[in-house]
């Protein structure tokens, strides 16, 4: 049986849920997610959501906007940064009204704490801007929005995977789903489709992301002709627990934690004299990797120490208890008395599906694709530019998720249902059967190689030669993928098959990341080229766009929107 909706939201993280809540009664909304909604990766967010509420100390949205632009190394579209910062307070109050249990100040207001790159008075020093609920802000915001979705009785399809996106003659027509429980492949038609499928940190070996972050939505847009924007900008968070990659939020440094090298020396003031340990993530990750490369890792190994021992057990228990339990469970380290071994971990994708300020997906000429929307980490508004600041993602999800929902409500009158031929189901079913019959390599072995290649050639430091070699290897794996095989031939709960399908997303996205990173011959934000160590505004103050063309990938560029802040040298 074919399902149809007025609006179909793919992804039930915060971006998808927030958008779905905005779509008015009267329109039939469907929410499709490959995991049960509260299992979505948004629930892993720890540190907080940024807004200049001035609850702890004076703050202003203009400062927040400035930090977002400067943190993004001036690649941020400033109209987007302005929208984000101006709408932040409203968005956070709204979350409070919906029920998010924020920590509180003595006066009963939402408590705030310092976070990397967020400053007072245009860079003078750190400011307390992150609104938080202990170190599980994402969890409680996700619970809260999910509760609202239950209250609103939104149709939720859990453990249902989007395996294709249908764009007919410039219109989104619907998606094709694979039901994990039954193996059924179905067409779901919709007048509007919103992609909110999150990031794809799983392209890298060490990462803070969940297993389901394989970027399917981003890849399927790309496969169906939409460009991808700024894909070379991959954020490595400075403090992943060594060697797992599990995240220790910047909140740990916001609350007073400091980084030390193998000599026990606090190195961040040498790299960022004003913000020190609270400099933006690209700066801190490079500093850590530089210390390690120069032989000052702990015991000569590839990690440094995050020292929380100055905070005291009480503060850790009250504000960082999840983090301290990660250190205890996974390393047997008591963070109140011993330092935590940390190393940069792949964390966030600044790039993604290009959208306007209202969630409408743009084609390579900058024109909206009718009926197609995107929000959250999958999208590139671009509000994070070349490097996202901590707490700005959760904010992005609720601000731009809501705006995408409003757009759908607004555009709805002009959107219609299109027919989708059953051929696509037959085609995908044969593809699945071919994987089941094949005798070629297994998904896990190919996946492990992709992740190793990307980690080796396209992490915190990059150069042309290594990336060119990496790209060649990725292309050869792409060839091998054509005969990928699996053990499991069953229809029910065949996660083996889904591993194989997700691998196609990872491969496609790895290629786009490399092609974008090779093209950009400058260093900016998270993209640091050893062979081009300077930022080059004259040639590169522009967004990279990669589109799948008939003979391979096509690269084009799009200007950056600059309104209030002229690009300046970036010092912290």
């Amino acid at each position, binding site marked *: 049986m074919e399902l149809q909706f007025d609006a179909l939201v793919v992804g039930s993280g915060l971006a998808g849920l927030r958008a779905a809540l905005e779509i008015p009664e009267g329109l039939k909304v469907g929410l499709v997610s490959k995991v049960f909604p509260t299992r979505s990766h948004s629930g*892993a967010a720890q540190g907080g959501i940024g807004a200049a509420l001035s609850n702890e100390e004076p703050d202003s949205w203009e400062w927040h906007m400035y930090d977002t632009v400067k943190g993004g190394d001036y690649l941020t579209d400033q109209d987007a940064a302005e929208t984000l910062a101006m709408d932040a307070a409203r968005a956070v109050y709204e979350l409070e*009204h919906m029920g998010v*249990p*924020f920590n509180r100040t003595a006066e009963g207001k939402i408590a705030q704490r310092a976070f990397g790159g967020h400053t007072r008075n245009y860079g003078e020093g750190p400011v307390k801007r992150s609104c938080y609920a*202990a170190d599980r802000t994402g969890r409680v915001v996700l619970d809260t929005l999910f509760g609202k979705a239950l209250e609103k009785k939104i149709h939720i399809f859990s453990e249902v995977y989007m395996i294709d996106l249908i764009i007919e003659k410039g219109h989104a027509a619907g998606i094709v789903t694979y039901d994990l429980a039954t193996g059924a492949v179905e067409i779901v038609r919709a007048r509007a489709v919103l992609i909110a499928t999150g990031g794809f940190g799983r392209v890298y070996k060490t990462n803070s992301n969940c297993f389901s972050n394989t970027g399917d939505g981003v890849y399927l847009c790309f496969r169906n002709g939409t460009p991808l924007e700024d894909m070379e900008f991959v954020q490595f968070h400075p403090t992943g627990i060594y060697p797992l990659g599990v995240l220790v939020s910047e909140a740990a440094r916001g609350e007073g934690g400091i980084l030390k090298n193998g000599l026990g020396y606090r190195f961040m003031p040498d790299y960022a004299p004003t913000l020190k340990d609270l400099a933006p993530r690209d700066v801190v990750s490079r500093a850590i990797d530089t210390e390690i490369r120069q032989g000052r890792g702990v015991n000569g190994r590839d990690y440094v120490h995050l020292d929380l021992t100055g905070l005291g057990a009480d503060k850790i228990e009250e504000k960082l208890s999840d983090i301290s339990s990660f250190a205890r469970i996974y390393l047997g380290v008591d963070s109140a008395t011993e330092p935590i071994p940390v190393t940069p971990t792949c964390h966030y994708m600044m790039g993604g599906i290009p959208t306007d300020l209202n969630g409408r997906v743009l084609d390579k000429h900058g024109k909206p694709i009718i009926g197609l929307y995107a929000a959250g980490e999958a999208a590139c508004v671009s509000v994070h530019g070349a490097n996202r600041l901590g707490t700005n993602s959760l904010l992005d999800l609720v601000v731009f998720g809501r705006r995408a929902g409003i757009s759908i409500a607004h555009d709805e009158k002009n959107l219609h249902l299109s027919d989708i031929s059953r051929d696509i189901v037959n085609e995908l079913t044969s593809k699945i059967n071919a994987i089941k019959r094949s005798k070629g390599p297994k*998904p896990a072995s190919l996946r492990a190689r992709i992740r190793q290649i990307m980690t080796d050639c396209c992490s915190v430091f990059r150069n042309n030669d290594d990336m060119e070699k990496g790209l060649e290897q990725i292309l050869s794996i792409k060839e091998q993928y054509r005969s990928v095989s699996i*053990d499991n031939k*069953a229809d029910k709960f065949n996660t083996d098959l889904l591993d194989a399908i997700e691998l196609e997303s990872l491969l496609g996205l790895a290629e786009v990341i490399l092609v974008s990173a090779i093209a950009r011959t400058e260093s900016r934000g998270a993209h640091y080229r050893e062979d081009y160590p300077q930022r080059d505004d004259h040639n590169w103050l522009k967004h990279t766009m990669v589109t799948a063309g008939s003979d391979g990938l096509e690269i084009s560029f799009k200007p950056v929107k600059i309104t209030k802040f002229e690009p300046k040298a970036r010092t912290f």
Partner: protein
Amino acid sequence: MKIILRVFRFDPSVDEAPYYRNYSVQAEPYERVLDCLNRIKWEQDGTLAYRMSCAHGVCGSDAMKINGRCALACQKLVRDCEADLILVEPLPSFTVLKDLIVDLNPFFDKVNFVHPFLYAGTPPEKERLQSPEERKKMGESIRCILCACCTAACPVVNENENFLGPAPLVQAFRRIFDSRDTQKIERLDQLDVEDGVWACLNHYECTRVCPKEIPVTKYINTIKREIKKILGPSPE
């Protein structure tokens, strides 16, 4: 080191009865049981089915019975498993759909039953005020990841499928003790029934297994006391 994972296998559409299969895996003591399962699935036997996602105890996907105890496979380390044989089974009390995957719909239905969202009147322009002391009353309940370990481990749930069970009670606790919620009496009233809060017999199994260290039983008892205090002694 080499360890043996003895894993429950069952595909109700094919197998007449569940069976166990032993897998030998190479694992480091600091690795997670989830890493072992992944190694089996990726390298030895792709037919094994289980849920997982975050791999660090924050999403609630991979609750299962490990050496007889409900736990998250991503939070249980090889070195904590004592013996070099690790027994892995699906969560009890739920219907097995395949191998380690159980049908959690009845669980989520019971969570939904307590209305896990805030009821509150028209909000002020800015945030509602709530003192740190009031906020603390919700305690650790906000850590819940709906993994269902507690419900699966509860001996009462095991015998009485109508009992609401510990996880929904934790969800209810969070709203009952949220000073912003306006439905406290209705919420207490809803739980003041035989299969609500009173079915709990203080076995503490839920508290023992909760991977987020939520004092589940204590919260259930706090609800019981609050019911007595606010609604008066219950009819029975």
